[in-house]
Each structure stands twice: as C-alpha cells, then as structure tokens.
C-alpha cells in the first residue's frame, strides 16, 4: 500500500519543522527518513500516522486522502522510539491489546486472538516471553515486542520512530538485519526514522534525506551515497574533504594547482568547493617526477585493521587538514611515512557553488576541512 504526502507544512511556534514537503512512498518498500536531529523527520512520521496535524498539506494512503482521518482509523502500525509498552500488561496482553479493543462485531474470538498473538510472538522469536512484563525484558526484546504489537492489528503501513535509537551498538546491528529480513518476509510498506546514516544505507530500499524541514534528496542507498545532490548530503553521508577554488573549464583551480572535474554546470571562474571522499584520493610519493595533484605533507598515520587513515596538510593552506583512507598494504608499497611529502590526486571531485557549501555547513556533520 502506497503512501504519499503533498505540500506538508508544519510550524511549532517560530520553528519550521516541515517546509512544503512532498514525497511518495511506493508500496512494499522500506524507506528511511534520514537527517540530523531537528530536521523534521519525526514530525513527518507523526503526521503520516495522524498523531500530529499538519498546518497545511495532505496525506494520502493508497491514493485516498487520509488527512482528516483519526489515528484510530488510519490503520497504521507505529513503533515508538521508547517502545511505549504498557507496563502493567504482560507481553501477551500488550500484543493482544489492539485486537481486544476492536468494536465487538470486528473483534476476533479469544481463541483466535490467542493463536494470532502466539504467531506474532513466534515471528519476532519471543514466544517464550509471553507471560513476562515489559520491565523484565531487555531493550532489544522490548523493541521486538513493540513491533509485534504494532503488527497485530494488520496495519496497512508500518511506521518506526528511531527504532534502534535506544539500543546499544551490538544489539542495534543485529536488530536492523533482522528488521530487513522481516520486511522481506512481510513486504509491508514501512517508513523508519533515523539519524544514523549507516543504519539507513544498510537497511532501507530508499533513503529520504532531510534537513531544516526540507527534503534534500531521495534515492536508493547507492544513489544517494555515490551521487549526493547537495553539499549537505555529501557531508551527512560520511566524511568528506573540501577544496576551495575557482572553476576553470573542466577543472577546479585550487591555488596554482588544478583538479580534474567531471560533468558540471557551473560558470567559468565561479567560486566553488570541491568535495572529495577520503577513500577517493590517490596518494603518490612526491619524488619530483609526479605530474599534477596537490602537494601535501603527511602529518600522522593511524591504522585500524586493514585500513589506514592518513592526515595531511597542504602548504597553501596550513591550517586545514586533509584526510585520506587507503589500505595499509598500499601505504607500505608506496613507502610513505609521517613527515613525507606527497601528491594528492582525487579520483572523483564533485563541485558545488561556494555559497551552497557555506550554507550547508551549519547543519551537516562537520566536514573534515572547512
């Protein structure tokens, strides 16, 4: 079942939570709403659920306008960030709640409720906890019970607010794989909110990136990672090096050096910033024979596992740092150590106008070099 929202606006006092947001969520997909805190993603989720009313704009469920429907009538499953389990009820009663409050003529029989709850508890692999109270469960177990409770009423869509936010790192990783598997089994249209880019990229079919109440980019995880549409998205999805310069045909002039650019639509001599991911830079030993690239000096090398992070400074702008990630083997082969002079050859540079880059800095995860 598809969901779409059109021209949603929402303000809290002087704070704009959502600024004319329109989105389509295709049927059967698992979509992540990703963005920094305060970007409006949770508000959008709550508006879709009917827990919040938009100042203007519409919500469509399966093509029908659901804006005026009460949350009870929208048939959405909502999993709260802190689960909101009923603490005075057992796990079984929690999951059965949605079935037991149905109007008498639609309410399943007791036996049917029992069977259904058992099935759901089996689905979330916690049928042995039926008689426990929420306080007796671990965080990961509560999360799965909250999900089972939401699924019990056979919702048309599943909405999850920071579903892994309150869990520790290890459980979080396990649970998100499990959620992906569960979604592959059920194929229920699902939206989940997260501020963790790794989580969004790993679990979702599609990622919606939001900032300051606006949608910055929509796409598959690969699309948004490989082709970020804005400086914000670039900065938010992983680390990035920034090189300030001017556009000169198919190159970006940084000081007296030039970086090769792909296709771009910036005017000649426009002030621009080149965005380069740490792993998309070739590191060459500066033995006086290398042609092109930016000269730099290795400050520090830190290794973790197979990879090494090389921190460098450029003589032209000594205050800035450049970060490059390479395999430790590669580093050994080219024979570069701390204090050595090297040349940096970015393999892929994406340019944005300088103004766009400056305005995104306030909210994006801090780029490596400002």
């Amino acid at each position, binding site marked *: 079942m598809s969901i779409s929202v059109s021209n949603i606006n929402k303000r809290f006092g002087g704070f704009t939570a959502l600024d004319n947001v329109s989105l389509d969520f295709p049927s059967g997909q698992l979509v992540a709403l990703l963005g920094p805190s305060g970007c409006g993603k949770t508000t959008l989720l709550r508006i879709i659920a009917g827990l919040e009313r938009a100042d203007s704009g519409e919500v469509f469920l399966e093509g029908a306008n659901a804006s005026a429907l009460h949350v009870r009538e929208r048939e*959405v499953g909502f999993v*709260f960030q802190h689960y909101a*389990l009923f603490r*005075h009820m057992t796990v079984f009663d929690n999951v059965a*709640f949605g079935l037991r*409050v149905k109007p008498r003529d639609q309410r399943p029989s007791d036996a049917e409720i029992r069977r259904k709850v058992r099935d759901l508890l089996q689905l979330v692999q916690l049928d042995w906890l039926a008689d426990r109270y*929420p306080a007796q469960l671990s965080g990961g177990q509560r999360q799965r019970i909250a999900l089972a409770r*939401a699924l019990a*009423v056979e919702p048309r869509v599943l909405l999850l607010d920071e579903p892994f936010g309150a869990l520790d790192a290890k459980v979080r990783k396990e649970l998100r794989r499990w959620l992906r598997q569960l979604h592959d089994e059920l194929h229920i249209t699902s939206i989940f909110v997260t501020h963790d880019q790794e989580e969004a990229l790993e679990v979702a079919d599609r990622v919606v990136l939001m900032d300051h109440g606006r949608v910055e980019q929509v796409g598959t995880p690969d699309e948004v990672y490989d082709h970020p549409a804005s400086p914000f998205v670039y900065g938010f999805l992983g680390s990035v090096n920034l090189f300030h310069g001017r556009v000169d045909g198919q190159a970006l002039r940084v000081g007296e050096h030039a970086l090769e650019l792909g296709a771009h639509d910036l005017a000649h001599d426009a002030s621009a910033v080149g965005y380069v991911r740490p792993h998309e830079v070739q590191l060459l030993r500066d033995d006086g024979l290398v042609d092109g690239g930016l000269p730099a000096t290795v400050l520090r090398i830190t290794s973790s596992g197979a990879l090494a992070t090389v921190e460098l400074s450029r003589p032209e702008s000594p205050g800035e740092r450049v970060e490059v990630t390479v395999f430790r083997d590669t580093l050994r082969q080219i024979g570069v150590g701390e204090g050595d002079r090297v040349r940096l050859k970015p393999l892929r540079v994406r340019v944005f106008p300088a103004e766009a880059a400056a305005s995104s800095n306030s909210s994006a995860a801090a780029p490596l070099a400002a």
Partner: protein
Amino acid sequence: MASIALAAPAPQARRGFSTLLKRKHSVLPGFSLALGYSVIYLALVVLIPLAAVFLKSSTLGWEGFWNATTQPRVLASFKLSFGASLIAAAINVVFGLIFAWVLVRYRFPGKRLIDALIDLPFALPTAVAGIALATLYANNGWVGSVLAPLGVEVAYTPLGVLVALVFIGLPFVVRTVQPVLEDLEAEVEEAAACLGANRWQTFSKVIVPYLTPALLTGFALAFARAVGEYGSVIFIAGNMPMVSEIMPLMIITKLEQYDYAGATAIAVVMLIASFVLLLLINVLQAWTQRSHQRI
C-alpha cells in the same frame, strides 16, 4: 565468612555503636551524634508515650478491654467513624482523580489558584474548618438554607460528618495522583490510539491501571486521616450519642468522665487500625514506586 569476622574483632568492639549499625564506612562525620540524638528524641517524644497507651490498656485485662470497646455507644461510634471515612475516601478518590486530571491535562482560568488552594485542608486549622462548615451547612447557613427545603439536613447528622471528612481528605488523593499522572508518557496513550483504542478504552485499560497504585495509596491516606480526624468534625456532627459521635470524641467523653481505662481501650483500637493502615500505605507506596520505574 566466620574466619574473616574473627580476624578483626578488637577495633570493631572499640568503635562500638557506630560500627555496630553502620553497613558502609563513610568519611562524613556526625553519624553517632545525629543518629543517637534522633533515636533518643524519637523514643522520648513518640515511642514511650505511645507505649503508655498499650500498657495502660493492659491493666484492663481482656474482659475489661472487651467491655469497654463493645458498649453500644462505642460500637456506634466505630461504625460511624469507619463507615463515614470509607465513603469519604471513596468520594475523594473520584474527585481527587478529576482534580488531578484537570490540573495536569487542561488549561483553564483559575487553575493556578486551585492548584495552590487544594492544600487548604492541610493548612487551615481544623477548628476553623469545623466552625466554618457547621455554619455553612446549618439550616440557616449559605448551603444549609438551600438544602433544607429539599429535606436534606447535613449539619448535626452523620451526613455532616461525611462532609467534614470529604473536606479533610481531598488533598491526599490529589497530591498522590497528580505527580504520577504528570509522569505518564504521552507515547503510551498514543500507542493505544494507534492500535485502535478509543479514548474511553485508553482511559480504562491503560491510564486507570497505571494510576491504580496511586489511587489506592491516596484512598488509604485519606481514610487514615478521616478515621482520626477530630476538629473539623465535632462542630458539624452534633455529637448525638448513638447517632453522630465519632471515635475520637468518644475518647474525650470518657476522659471527661475520668474513665481513663475506657478512653485508652478505644485509643488502642484506633491505634491498631492506624498501624495496619500505615503498613498498608507503605506497601502501596512501594508498589506505586515500583510500577513507575521507567522501562
């Protein structure tokens, strides 16, 4: 274990009182002084005088005690005190919940004033409350003159006792329920709504069970206070033997007749009831706290 305990007996014995009681060492000074003073003061002011009641009543013997507490007039006062207190506490649970609900959930003119004045029955001396209620509900009073033509007599009847006890018990329920209601996360109610529960179902199946320990605690507190209440009741009660005499008044009546043993026997019954209630309240409060631990 035993060998460890035997290893260092000497310094322990020397440091005495403090080490005997203390489970954990602390660098802070003043433990012996503070605890010693507290315990002695508590014993002198509270424990020894209370013990006097039980010792005095034991001089009556079992038969004397039974005779003193089963006189028809005394039994009638038991019935009135416990009965009116139960009804008053029940009324307070209903209105206490309404007050807590509107104070926590709604915005309306005068809300802050109400929130502050809810404690009036705590702060207003009981004698003042007593004469004010008696005057209001007398047949020529502001309220009494409205009720009298309807055939409802409040002052100088058991109904008057009830009115005074409702007055005195209200803050107990409000102040027990209010913080618990404030603590109830909005998400829990939203979860119920998402699952299709209507407002009444959410209230009865989610909110009320959550508030139950607090409501019961408030009920027990209001009841305990009502059973012992004296000042606010005697002016409006009329104090007719067999009809509107409460237990504390029976004690005073016996004292005025120099029947110290009889007064003490009634006091023992009331004290036992109080201690049972105190125990119950402690259990309920522990339950309230436990069920509010955030999950």
